[in-house]
């Protein structure tokens, strides 16, 4: 198989348990029973390492997810050891590029077990703590089972995390009810010392009339604050992108799919393979899980084909294909599948359309305002020369 990307992301769903019950979380079947056994993890890793031709990518990210993955940090530690050992013993090309990534809610970040794990693997480990912004916004969604907010617990661990992973950003998810807090939340995250904020609207159809206008206004206010306070030099917010947002797309010349499902591989506690986490049963509301194999039989390549064949034309409606601001409009293949009229991954959900257009207008405002300011100050040339080349970042 020819690689479409240089990097492979392999997700191991180590647990379906979590201390939190975030209101927007797309994992809808959380439980404390389904935990990955080490034997299943070993079988998955053996299959992947022994079938190198199916995984031609140069580098690999081994991602541990949940639920809350840090609940199973001892298991993760054993899995990381096994991956390192087996890629070395078998002379696998990934031995030098194995990288472990974890996105955690940060609740048990400071515990002895987690800290021991970090000190052991810190040479090839990235950990991101997700914090949604101000206390109000964070606690609005990120709550414990008893309804209590998790902000205070997580905040305590931020300084330690930043001292260990200063370059890793955080990821913020926006749903309808927290739109009024976007500006304050992003600025609050910056004030904590977190310099990179990946932020996106949920793909689910949660939006109501007036959300797009409110969203646009929040983004304009954020733009004003970031520019007036000159935060643009050292801080990054993924709302702002000069090159890739809000342009028409010639889908004849650039047919590529937005979503990376199919180029990723996800493994659950039963040893089933999925094109990404979003196709597991506990992430789907209305459709059956889309399993593409298992650790015993391997990947059914026929089940994988539709994911690797996805292009813009085949799944988009005419309005999307003709859209003047199409670039940067994201979609999640799993959400598309879940809301499609038939059990297909080839029907793109447009729930996010108005939110994307609002973001495009705010993004245009940001760059026009910023460049005008820099020109008036005679600093534009210097800014362009020195500006950091951030990529768009993750959207799911």
């Amino acid at each position, binding site marked *: 198989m020819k690689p479409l990307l240089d990097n492979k992301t392999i997700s191991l769903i180590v647990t379906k348990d979590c201390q939190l019950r975030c209101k927007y979380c797309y994992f809808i079947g959380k439980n404390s029973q389904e935990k990955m056994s080490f034997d299943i993890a070993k079988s998955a890793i053996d299959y992947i390492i022994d079938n190198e031709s199916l995984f031609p990518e140069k580098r690999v990210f081994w991602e541990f997810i949940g639920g809350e993955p840090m609940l199973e940090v001892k298991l993760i530690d054993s899995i990381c050891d096994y991956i390192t050992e087996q890629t070395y013993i078998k002379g696998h090309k990934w031995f030098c590029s194995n990288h472990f990534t974890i996105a955690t809610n940060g609740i048990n970040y400071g515990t002895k077990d987690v800290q021991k794990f970090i000190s052991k693997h810190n040479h090839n480990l990235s950990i991101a703590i997700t914090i949604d912004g101000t206390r109000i916004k964070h606690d609005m969604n990120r709550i414990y089972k008893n309804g209590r907010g998790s902000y205070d617990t997580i905040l305590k661990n931020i300084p330690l995390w930043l001292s260990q992973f200063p370059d890793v950003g955080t990821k913020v998810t926006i749903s309808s009810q927290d739109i009024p807090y976007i500006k304050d939340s992003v600025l609050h995250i910056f004030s904590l010392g977190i310099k990179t904020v990946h932020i996106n609207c949920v793909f689910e159809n949660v939006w109501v009339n007036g959300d797009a206008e409110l969203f646009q206004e929040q983004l304009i206010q954020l733009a004003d604050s970031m520019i007036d306070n000159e935060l643009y030099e050292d801080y990054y917010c993924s709302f702002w992108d000069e090159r890739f947002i809000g342009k028409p797309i010639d889908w*004849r010349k650039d047919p590529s799919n937005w979503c990376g499902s199919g180029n990723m591989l996800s493994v659950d506690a039963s040893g089933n393979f999925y094109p990404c986490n979003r196709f597991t049963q506990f992430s789907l509301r209305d459709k059956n899980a889309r399993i593409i194999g298992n650790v015993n039989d391997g990947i059914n390549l026929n*089940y994988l*084909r*539709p994911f*690797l064949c996805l292009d813009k*034309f085949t799944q988009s409606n005419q309005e999307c294909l003709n859209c003047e601001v199409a670039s940067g409009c994201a979609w999640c293949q799993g959400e598309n599948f879940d809301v*499609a*009229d038939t059990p297909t991954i*080839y029907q793109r959900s447009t729930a996010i359309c108005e939110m994307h257009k609002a973001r495009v207008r705010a993004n245009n405002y940001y760059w026009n305002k910023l460049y005008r300011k820099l020109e008036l100050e005679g600093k534009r040339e210097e800014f362009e020369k020195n500006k950091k080349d951030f990529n768009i970042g993750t959207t799911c």
Partner: protein
Amino acid sequence: MMQYLIVLLDDAAASYCHYSVNKPIRPIELDTLRRAIRYAMMENLMIQFVYPEKQIQEDLRVEIETIDHHKLMPVSYSDYNQADVLLYKSIKEWLHDDKEKSESICVVCTDKYSMFAQSEEISKALNTQKRLNFIMTDIDTFTDDDFTQYKSVLEQWSNTINLSFKKGKILQFNLLTDRLFLSKMNNCQAGVSNITLAPNGHFYVCPAFYYEDETNDIGNLSSGVTMNNAQLFKLDYSPLCRHCDAYQCCRCVWLNKRTTLEVNIPSHEQCVVAHLERNASRKLLNSIRISSTFIPEQQIKEIEYLDPFEILGENQTFK
């Protein structure tokens, strides 16, 4: 554009394609048939009636004649001589059938091993037929060894057809000669130019969808056809097929759904089988041209892949 309505006259109507019939005898009701004919007339559809082995009732027989149509009949049907298309459920049945059928269109359903095992006999019998369609019912089980064997039997049959051409007789055998004459895709078109009406009065993309799951209907005679994502059945919406030149491929959307879970994406096995046929047709064309000028405008270019998925990256841009 919808052009054909396939009407199953009985739940046990003979199979003419990849699917198997798994229901007991249950004739279509006269009222359902009348409404189907009325629907076809109003929608300008040509009906293709598919018959069971058991003789149909007289009232149905009379009703059928009220509309222009085609008859697809199992060869064991008592009035088989009225058939526009004769259906055989095995190669054995076709080879051993001593009825006069040289002017008939024959559809033979077969599994791969019967076809490989009887390739010699098939080769000899090709000459006896005006038009022959082989339908393999187990394409999804093809292995690399099967591909090798299939390539070999196609070459064997190709020699027979070439010899026949030299003698001035043009044979029509779907696996080898269709591609010689095609300049664009000529696929099954289920869901695009034809739909199926089952005896229960519901529409299906094709009979295979009915026999797989009766709840898979796309409407009924009262509501009409209500297909969601109908565009996915069209050629342009298949990222692999829209660039492909294995024009003779049946491009079975039911097999697609079964093997890849998407109606618009063919399996590796379906693609390789179609490309083995395409490449064999190319060789046949070149062989025929050694001794005669034969459809000079036709070009089947040499390609290095058997599965268009192998060149997906290069081929994904839309032409």
